[in-house]
């Protein structure tokens, strides 16, 4: 057992945990933030993607102890965030989710590509989304939602 402290959605959180606990299980079972979903549990499906020190990572193959001292942002941690608000609105308008299982990972990946890649286009969005699986096969509407947000942001700047 190891005692760790992280900043979780802006708040300091201290827990004593098994060394083998994943970051995904830490936020879900020990911090009761169940918006992070666990799908394949070996880094393939992308459902568990969340932000670690501002960058998307797979929380199912990241040990919680390794996140000691880091900043963790889950899907619950975007209150007042303009970019995430725009992405959510576009997902809503484009019907970019059905069952919602992949959605928190999709939102994290969308947030990352929209803030990191200035010349985002349809092909690049498809490639960047390659690591997030949706089994309702809503890819086209997810791509369209991200395109909408990018176009809005490009028009404003």
């Amino acid at each position: 057992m190891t005692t760790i402290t992280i900043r979780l959605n802006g708040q300091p959180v201290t827990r004593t945990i098994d060394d083998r606990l994943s970051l995904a299980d830490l936020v879900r079972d020990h911090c009761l933030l169940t918006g992070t979903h666990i799908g394949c549990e070996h880094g393939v499906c992308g459902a568990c993607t969340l932000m670690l020190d501002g960058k998307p990572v797979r929380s199912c193959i990241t040990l919680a102890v390794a996140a000691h001292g880091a900043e963790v942002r889950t899907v619950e941690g975007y209150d007042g965030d303009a970019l995430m608000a725009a992405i959510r609105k576009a997902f809503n308008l484009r019907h970019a989710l059905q069952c919602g299982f992949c959605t928190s990972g999709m939102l994290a990946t969308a947030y990352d590509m929209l803030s990191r890649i200035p010349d985002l286009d349809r092909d690049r969005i498809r490639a960047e989304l390659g690591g997030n699986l949706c089994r309702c096969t809503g890819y086209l509407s997810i791509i369209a939602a991200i395109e909408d947000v990018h176009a809005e942001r490009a028009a404003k700047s």
Partner: protein
Amino acid sequence: MKPAELSYTRPATLSEALATLHRHGDEARAIAGGQSLGPMLNLRLVQPKQLVDISRLEGLRKAAMEGGILAIGACVTHAEIEDGVSADVTRGLMPHVARGIAYRAVRNRGTIGGSMAHADPAADWLTTMIAMDAALRLSRSDGSRQIKVADFVRGALHTAISDGEIITQVLLPRLGSDARWGYAKYAKKPGDFAQSLAVAVVDPKRNFARVVLGRRAEPPALLRELSRLLTANPRPPPQDALRQAVEADLNDAKVYANDRTMHRAIVERAARGLSA
């Protein structure tokens, strides 16, 4: 899908990390980004009792020129190479390869040293490093050594690393000003492991040319005939000579049947890419 019981430690210095690994012998594993080891832990394919996290050791997190060699710290991430955070001596080959590795969320944590240590033959760095004639610097508590990547890889997921030893740097020779490279990969979806992967490097100033084929389950194959042909003809050789060399190399690599069509196409694409 949870790892077996284990203990985790994050030593503050390299010597402390090496001493811990030495003390625990074959029950310990070094972990950096954990993007290969993490899934193997979850699937319980490996069950180390002790994990030693080396990912934040400052000395392994940077890249520096040592004469004509770029020494990249083993814990530099694929994303950092993709973004050009560390220097590039490969005329764009390294960032290009990095961008095609798995997904951004994996590249943010996965490291070049970890990828070498895992030695999946379908992964990008292994084939690329052999094509670049790169070497590795390895350290253990009683000293360090250097080994060419081509000699380091013994087979699929099998390397020359010993208990208590870690990769500290990847050593890349600087390409000359007129050097060119070609890269081609076939995977079933973006970011998936390659079904076939070829990297060609031609560096006329060093009289060097090398083409390497990466594939599943077999260690990367150095394509000797094609490499020899490109050394003699750094400008693309005639198409029929090229095809003849590729066929001889595919025979040598024992690539037959359906796979042969795929690997031939990928190798020829990488060779054609050289002219660009």
